[in-house]
């Protein structure tokens, strides 16, 4: 089985020879009430790389992503089993002993639909710092600017930081949300289909941004768009019905899938 998706342009995302492990998922099961949404997931997430989670709707890719910042804790009757160990300190972030707020302070998230607060651009970015108790204006100013630069939005908004974030265009709003996620210097940034509500041009700018961010932060991205996974990620995990079917370097998974289901999905036979 060779080169099933030859038309996909791959990014220059190289797989480094000896990548450091940022997180290791071991035997992870997740339940919504009695419904098991994730089944015995094992995989590693490499530091300072983009890892994509792909698969058909309902395969559990978003569910897996949301385990990383314990977003499921907001929904009643959800349950984690197993481990997501975060390095270097080797802590199991889905353990009930760990406060989800602690996890969210280390791992931030960008959502499917841009969701800026109906507050000023400045306050949107500063919010993560404010909840931590940062009050000094000089520190806030510096970190807000750095985050907005990191999200490639600074030049567009530097003269109107007091305007509402909701007045920006869709693509700008999503970059504002990325800035908000970056302002707190997270170790991992989670992206949950970040471009599904955007037009192609805004999508391209977000993808460029994700690729450029990968040098300094670990990124996990859920996408329903296989081309997007190919363009931005170094590693790809293919999930189906709550199971991890196949995981590996993106180029290998796309050109030499080891499982029939992966190749069927990549060639558009289902999903």
């Amino acid at each position, binding site marked *: 089985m060779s080169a099933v998706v030859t038309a996909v342009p791959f990014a220059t995302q190289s797989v480094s020879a000896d990548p450091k492990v940022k997180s290791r998922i071991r035997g992870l099961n997740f339940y919504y009430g009695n419904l098991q949404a994730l089944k015995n997931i094992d995989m590693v997430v490499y530091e300072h790389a983009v890892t994509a989670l792909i698969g058909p709707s309902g395969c559990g890719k978003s569910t897996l992503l949301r385990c990383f*910042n314990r*977003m499921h804790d*907001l929904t*009643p009757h959800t349950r984690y089993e197993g481990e997501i160990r975060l390095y270097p300190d080797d802590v199991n972030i889905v353990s009930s002993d760990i406060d989800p*707020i602690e996890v*969210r*302070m280390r791992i*931030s*998230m960008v*959502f499917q*639909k841009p*969701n*800026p*607060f*109906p507050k000023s651009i400045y306050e949107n970015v500063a*919010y*993560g710092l*404010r*909840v*931590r108790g940062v009050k000094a204006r000089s520190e806030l100013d510096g970190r807000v600017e750095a985050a907005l630069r990191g999200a490639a939005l600074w030049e567009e908004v530097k003269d109107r930081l007091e305007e*509402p974030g*909701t007045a920006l265009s869709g693509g700008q709003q999503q970059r504002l*949300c990325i800035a*908000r*996620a970056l*302002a*707190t210097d997270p170790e991992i940034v989670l992206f949950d289909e970040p471009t599904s509500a955007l037009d192609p041009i805004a999508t391209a700018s977000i993808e460029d941004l994700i690729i450029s961010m990968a040098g300094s932060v670990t990124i996990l991205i859920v996408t329903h768009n296989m081309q997007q996974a190919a363009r931005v990620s170094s590693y790809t995990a293919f999930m189906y019905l709550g199971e991890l079917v196949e995981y590996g370097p993106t180029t290998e998974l796309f050109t030499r899938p080891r499982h029939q289901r992966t190749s069927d999905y990549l060639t558009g036979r289902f999903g």
Partner: protein
Amino acid sequence: MASISPSIAVEAAVPGVAEIRANVVRRRRWDIVFAVVGFLATSVGVVTLLALFVDLVMDGYHRLTPDFFLSFPSRRAAEAGILSAWVGTCLVMMVTAAIGVPLAVSAGIYLEEYAPRNWVTTLIEINVSNLAAVPSIVYGLLALGLFVYALGFGQSILSAGLTLALMIMPVVVVATREAVRAVPHTIREAAYAVGATRWQATRDHVLPYSIPGIATGVIIGLARAIGETAPLITIGALTFIAYLPDPPISTKPPFVSFDWLWSGFTVLPIQMFNWVSRPGTAFHANAAAAGIVIVVLTLAMNGFAIYLRYRLRKRITW
């Protein structure tokens, strides 16, 4: 595909057009019928209120002089005024708002944001909804037993304010819950995702964004309380008061006084009720004038609620 040209399609349709039109006209008839019925139904309320108000104005407008607002009740109808009544109403409303609003808003937010979904919460929810339907006289009886006697607050402004606070609570709780529920879940997620606690997400986002809805509920609740008579008569509001409570602010330290809380009181609707029940048309004119004041106050509060909702909602977009 090419065999069906547009002209053929139109020709084929032509014999049916007249029938289609007749069919539409037939069905449209019921549109018109309902529009007329609906308009009449809507008018009943508006016209009745208008007629009532016009009647009040005709009877009472000549009594609406500055003196009327600045005089105490009197045995002589022409000298009687509503000073103690409107001051009483203002003070009772202050207590009602100060006690009822924080309680009801906290309860609403707790039920929506914090309460676990279990049978205890469900029981509380059902109870709150039912409280809205409890007749106000029952609140009066409860208050008589609880505030006036058991807690020893007496027949005071404090007792009255607390009674009405209890009465508006269900309205404000329901309004708060609806406003809080209208805040998109994605906004909460955004706050939690950067590490906010539940309280921070509530204080910084959920509460500010639901203020328009909450404020509307508060004002509508207060507008209802302002016209309430039965529970206040039950707890012993006086109908003839020729003095004012101690002022809440004084020039001497400590500048703020709470003695007025313990004062006897009357309120506008009770004053009106008192005048209505007297023989003689002169007092009935006074009653009509007081009625105008109450109706205008209530309408003004409701109008303000609508304005506030409109203004504040415009500022918040998702």
